């Protein structure tokens, strides 16, 4: 009997740094379409995220893959400072990011320092 469950891939910053942007995006999307949860030690930059969303949209099919859930931590400052830095000139570093299939991964709660997610098997 086949064991039921969800595969979670935790990918280190070192491994990610060896990949080009397109390689990262393809790896994420291929894994997520296979029903896996991908956790990146260091998240994508805004351009990469935007390309990931663009490619995700092109993969969506009726009664098939319907997209992704993606969540990451904000920067470490408190809210006003966070938003000030967000639109200021400082460089923001991407942080741990969780990505999964939209029909299996559901974000329950997000805080500045905690993300709660619910994962179901297919």
């Amino acid at each position: 009997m086949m064991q039921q469950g969800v595969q979670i891939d935790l990918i280190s910053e070192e491994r990610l740094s060896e990949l080009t942007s397109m390689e990262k995006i393809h790896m994420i999307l291929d894994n997520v379409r296979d029903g896996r949860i991908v956790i990146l030690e260091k998240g994508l930059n805004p351009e990469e995220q935007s390309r990931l969303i663009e490619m995700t949209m092109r993969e969506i099919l009726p009664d098939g893959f319907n997209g992704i859930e993606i969540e990451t931590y904000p920067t470490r400052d408190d809210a006003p400072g966070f938003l000030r830095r967000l639109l200021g000139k400082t460089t923001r570093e991407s942080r741990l990011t969780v990505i999964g299939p939209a029909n299996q991964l559901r974000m329950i709660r997000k805080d500045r320092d905690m993300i709660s997610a619910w994962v179901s098997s297919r």
Partner: protein
Amino acid sequence: MSIFVRAKSRVSKFLMAFFRKRRSRIGIYGPPNAGKTTLANRIARDWTGETVGPVSEIPHETRRALRKQDITITGNNGSTITIDIVDTPGVTTKIDYKDFIEYGVAKDEAVIRAREATEGVAEAMHWLREDIDGVIYMLDSTEDPFLQVNIMMIGIIESRNLPVIIAANKIDLPDASPQRIKSAFPQHPVISISCTEGKNIEELYEQMVNHFG
């Protein structure tokens, strides 16, 4: 045509291309239901007498990036800008046709709407990375700015050094708090507006002339 006439024509086209002020493409971005299409329609109606797209309660009513070209806005001191307004779909990472069915749309139509919505979001992402010259970032002033802001989109705006105006919309509603949005974005112009009532819309136009001109 003589060689002199051809040469004159070429020089004329070159000079026209060189000196003609390029129109700026201003994208209206923001979360779903912040009032992006309502603003695009108001701008287009106020300055051209036409509209951009329909507004409704059904999610993803704007399913393609809709462009209204050649809108000339005049400021109080008489200076003008000519822009193309690009009304974009609310950015999302998932689209399921069944969500449309919940709003009473038939299945065949829901599948079509879902496909159009995916194309629209992809297009909006592409526009922001490649083709937009300035952004009006719409936020709902009745909601917490921290929960509405899209870090990725702000990151792209920042990395491309695009001029941005934050529009704190829905100030006509009783629980609106545009001050929260102003506090959250101290380094950028924040204009409190009501797109449906037109409140402070002149102030937005003035800011657009100053900021995008």
